[in-house]
């Protein structure tokens, strides 16, 4: 390489264009509300992989970065959704070959008798190769109260695969923050092999409202003006209640509103129903929720 070659410009823009990753990132921005730290981290990873590709083009080699991740956050904060996107993003960046997501929990990895765990875990790892292995509630793998628990074996095999098959596999662990921390404390090997610890913050009530609208639009529904106001009142009430699961609670609330809307249309069926009627959720569909009257959500025992 001549000395001048070091100053030759490399085309970052063209590389970005070619990878089509911008499109995925924009989609991420559009379809995922809030989640600032998550998006920042994904952007950083995308940038790193892109720069790595450029470096490779001009002959600067470096080891492939490890992309094993840990998603910590409360229920319903979008961990699975982001993991799903992660597969697509990493595929576009050429980091994984297939970009499919294999979602597993403890049951899928840990066997029931001696000698059952290793083949079971290996089979899952083989299935996830070329894509992303998403382990939900990973801390259940480790049960300190039972020293003969087979979970430890699964962890060891996972660690081995994470180290030896870095090119074939991206492992994402997910779970609640405090329990994840405890899990990593008792498994330092796991902690050190995971480069990216991403925290999923809870949503604010404005963000939840935006999510609700997005969900409705996805199902070809919409709020009437009054219903929107009612739902804006509903969200802070629901947030204060126990078992609030962020976006998941919102989805359940919307499902119940759809139920009531259908019932309302059915009850008043002598009147002609228009397409707008079929699409619109009215204030009464939202206000009928027990959250307003009794202070606990429908479908749960008082």
């Amino acid at each position, binding site marked *: 390489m001549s000395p001048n070659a070091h100053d030759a410009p490399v085309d970052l823009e063209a590389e970005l264009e070619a990878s089509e990753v911008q499109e995925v990132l924009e989609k991420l921005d559009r379809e995922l509300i809030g989640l600032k730290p998550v998006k920042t981290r994904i952007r950083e990873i995308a940038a790193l992989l892109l720069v790595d590709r450029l470096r490779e083009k001009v002959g600067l080699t470096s080891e492939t970065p490890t992309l094993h991740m840990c998603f910590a956050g409360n229920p319903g904060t979008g961990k699975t959704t982001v993991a799903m996107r992660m597969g697509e993003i990493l595929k576009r960046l050429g980091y994984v070959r*297939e970009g*499919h997501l294999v979602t597993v929990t403890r049951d899928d990895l840990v066997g029931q008798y001696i000698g059952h765990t290793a083949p079971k875990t290996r089979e899952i*790892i*083989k*299935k996830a*190769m*070329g*894509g992303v292995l998403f382990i939900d509630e990973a801390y259940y793998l480790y049960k300190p109260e039972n020293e003969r628990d087979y979970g430890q074996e699964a962890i060891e095999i996972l660690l081995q695969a994470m180290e030896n*098959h870095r090119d*074939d596999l991206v492992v994402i662990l997910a779970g609640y923050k405090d329990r994840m921390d405890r899990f990593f404390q008792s498994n330092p090997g796991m902690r050190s092999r995971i480069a990216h610890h991403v925290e999923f913050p809870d949503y604010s009530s404005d963000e939840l409202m935006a999510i609700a609208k997005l969900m409705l639009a996805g199902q070809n529904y919409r709020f009437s003006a009054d219903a929107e106001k009612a739902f804006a009142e509903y969200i802070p009430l629901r947030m204060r209640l126990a078992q609030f699961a962020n976006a998941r609670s919102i989805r359940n609330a919307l499902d119940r509103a759809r139920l009531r809307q259908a019932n309302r249309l059915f009850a008043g069926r002598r009147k002609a129903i228009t397409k707008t009627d079929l699409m619109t959720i009215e204030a009464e569909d939202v206000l009928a929720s027990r959250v307003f009257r009794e202070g606990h959500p429908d479908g749960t025992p008082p």
Partner: protein
Amino acid sequence: MMTNPGNRITQGQFSFLPELTDAQITAQIKWALKHGWAVSVEYTDDPHPRNTYWEMFGMPMFDLKDPAGILLEINSCRKSFPNHYIRVMAFNSTRGGESPAMSFLVNRPKAEPGFTLVRQETEGRQMRYTVHSYATDKPESERY
């Protein structure tokens, strides 16, 4: 056999070609996975062409998306049985098909003694011919 120096057995696909490299094996497996076939690894030390009873190395691998997992199995089989014949099979499970769609060797013993032609004289000066592998004169697992 004059036409087959080195006595390489020719069974399944690609057996007249030089040994497939790992990259070529990966490409073939990718083709199989693209069709939704389940790939499995088998081994034997009885090279007779009519030997259909090969041993399974682990389970057939269903629902895989990427060849890396299968290559992993191939390599661990090569490690366990460096001097056996190892083949990769792709099984087509669609109704009405339900049969192997691909089969090719990925490992063979270092020295292949080949086959002898066995003649048997029967009624009325008739001759029956068959082939017999020199290797199978020895008991199982001592053949190569």
